[in-house]
């Protein structure tokens, strides 16, 4: 692997050069939080960020997008969300999140709606420093070996730039003069010191190795009911999770509008799917097939037509989520599908998260806080 040095002052000029090639996305401040946004002005880029509100999956598969325009002849695919992008400032946990999604979307029937934008997005990773909610050291996702084009390790006055792909190398060649490939012994020592200090800074630790067994043993444990009572079934944990992929598909009908009024939606005046007969004659209608994020904690997640619901209780749906994260993925791929980003820890309003649930699985008494809060909410 090629490793180069880049002085801090040269980072933004470099980003400016490469952003001429594709849209640049990076974290920007949103109140006291951060979010990935398309960068118009380089001063917006937030450097020493913790986790963003939403993981970078939102850049690959938007929370809602059109899969097909429906015409009277059938389905015409719409891949307008696929564009060339450069994603800067993505941390190692989120790179692992994308690698996890890659496996799912590429297996069996490759999904072009995820894989195409993924292929067209350059990943420029950035090292980070854990806060009290980070536990990526426990999931072994604090280091990255693949899944990036360039990775910037922040060593205070300069960056070590790891080149992970041929495309990453191409980016370097757009501004070769600002990079220094002369790594000294002092640089190596600085890196070792940075890494050991960073590794010592983790305050949250979870033993994931025994979780598959504990999930199995606790299948009927009463705490699932308690957690289920407290859960608000809001779906926030799944929205912010970098490895959650579930989605719903709904067909959208446009009724009683002229084709020309829909030009911006369809990228041209659409043809009618069919006609409804009503008092004024025939009303044409137009259709789209919309895919949007879904959540396994929502009540209708496992409901089928006719009203049968295979997971009516919140406890059953929560257990499914934790089975998937801590057990099922392990049996398929040998590691949990949790990347230790800590988003569920900072997002869940009733503190049901990987940290508290794994603690409960290990036999820790669940905080009465959950029950109390749910009672207050229902009062």
């Amino acid at each position, binding site marked *: 692997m090629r490793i180069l040095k880049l002085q801090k002052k040269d980072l933004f000029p470099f980003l400016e050069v490469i952003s001429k090639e594709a849209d640049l996305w990076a974290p920007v401040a949103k109140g006291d939080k951060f979010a990935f946004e398309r960068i118009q002005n380089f001063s917006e880029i937030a450097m020493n960020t913790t986790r963003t509100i939403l993981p970078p999956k939102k850049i690959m598969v938007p929370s809602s997008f059109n899969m097909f325009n429906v015409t009277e002849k059938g389905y015409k695919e719409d*891949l307008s969300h696929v564009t060339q992008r450069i994603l800067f400032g993505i941390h190692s946990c989120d790179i692992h999140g994308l690698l996890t999604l890659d496996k799912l979307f590429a297996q*069996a*029937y490759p999904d*072009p709606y995820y894989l195409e934008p993924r292929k067209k997005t350059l990943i420029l990773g950035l090292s980070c420093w854990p806060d009290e909610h980070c536990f990526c050291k426990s999931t072994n996702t604090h280091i990255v070996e693949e899944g990036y084009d360039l990775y910037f390790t922040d060593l205070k006055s300069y960056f070590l730039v790891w080149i992970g792909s041929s495309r990453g190398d191409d980016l370097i060649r757009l501004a070769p003069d600002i990079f220094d490939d002369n790594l000294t012994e002092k640089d190596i020592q600085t890196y070792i010191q940075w890494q050991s200090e960073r590794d010592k800074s983790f305050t949250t630790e979870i033993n994931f190795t025994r979780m598959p067994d504990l999930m199995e043993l606790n299948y009927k444990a009463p705490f699932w009911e308690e957690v289920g009572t407290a859960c608000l079934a809001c779906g926030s944990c799944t929205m912010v999770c970098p490895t959650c992929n579930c*989605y719903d598909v709904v067909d959208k009908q446009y009724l009683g509008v002229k084709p020309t009024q829909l030009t911006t939606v369809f990228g041209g005046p659409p043809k009618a799917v069919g006609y409804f007969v009503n008092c004024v004659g025939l009303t044409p209608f137009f*259709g789209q097939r919309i895919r949007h994020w879904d959540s396994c904690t929502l009540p209708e997640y*496992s409901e089928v037509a006719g009203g049968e619901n295979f997971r009516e209780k919140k406890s059953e749906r929560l257990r499914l989520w934790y089975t998937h994260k801590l057990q099922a993925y392990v049996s398929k791929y040998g590691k949990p599908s949790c990347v230790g980003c800590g988003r569920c820890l900072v997002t869940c309003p009733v503190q049901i998260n990987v940290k508290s649930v794994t603690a409960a699985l290990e036999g820790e008494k669940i905080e009465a806080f959950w029950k109390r809060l749910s009672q207050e909410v229902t009062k």
Partner: protein
Amino acid sequence: MNGQNKSLAETNPFTPEPARIIRTYHLTDDVKFFQVRFVDMDKALAFKYKPGQFAMLSILGTGEAPFSISSTPSRPGLLEFCIRRAGTVTNALFRLQENSLVGLRGPYGNGFPVEEMKSKDIVIVVGGLGAAPLRSVLLYSLDNRDQFGRVAVLYGSKRPAEMIFREEYFALKQRPDLECHLAVDADDTGKWTENVGVVTTLFPHLKKVDTHNTYALVCGPPVMYKYVIRELIKLNIPKNQILMTLERRMKCGVGKCGHCAIDYIYTCLDGPVFTYWDVIHMRELI
């Protein structure tokens, strides 16, 4: 964008292929029969599937839903579905007339292990609309009658009017190479000549089975499985030779949308056919 991705459009697993409803009629008040064929005749003939697999059917502008295929691959070209009116998609489907355009993609799922089942005896236990997926394997075994051992069908439905393909089953009763027992929960016509009672009351009529040489196939409403499986276990049929086909919410059919997940498997990829051992092992199947 669309123009540049032509090759991609061909590999997009979500693209419904245009198909036409060739024939449709009511089987009961709320169940309709649909015969569907791909508009492209080459595709229609190239569509290879196994009994027990399912397809995703799209109603243009309304939505998409999974349906088990009721026809047999031994009669290629046309696909058949038995569909109950239950939700948005099926309501729209019921309004469509013959020659209407629909979208179709598939086949998906594992299907029944018909190769494994060859030369073995088969007991098919059907409750109500469970006849839809099991019709495929029944017709398949009849079309290849010499490749299977004994074939027995136990079919229970609520009332005589709700028994789908009633005439087909009465005709089967006449065949010497097949055992067929029919039952209704209640006879409101006064003309029912067969058994009255739930499907499990048919088990005493079943001729003695060669347990280790028998595959039992079960499909019906969720409430039925517990009681039918109890009877099959009494007959000593091995747990991994009791096969059932299950229903789940599905939005993709190809293991992406997550809705049909159970434990570490997806019903759409690893199912919808499961053994009784799977049910014990994974706990949330039935």
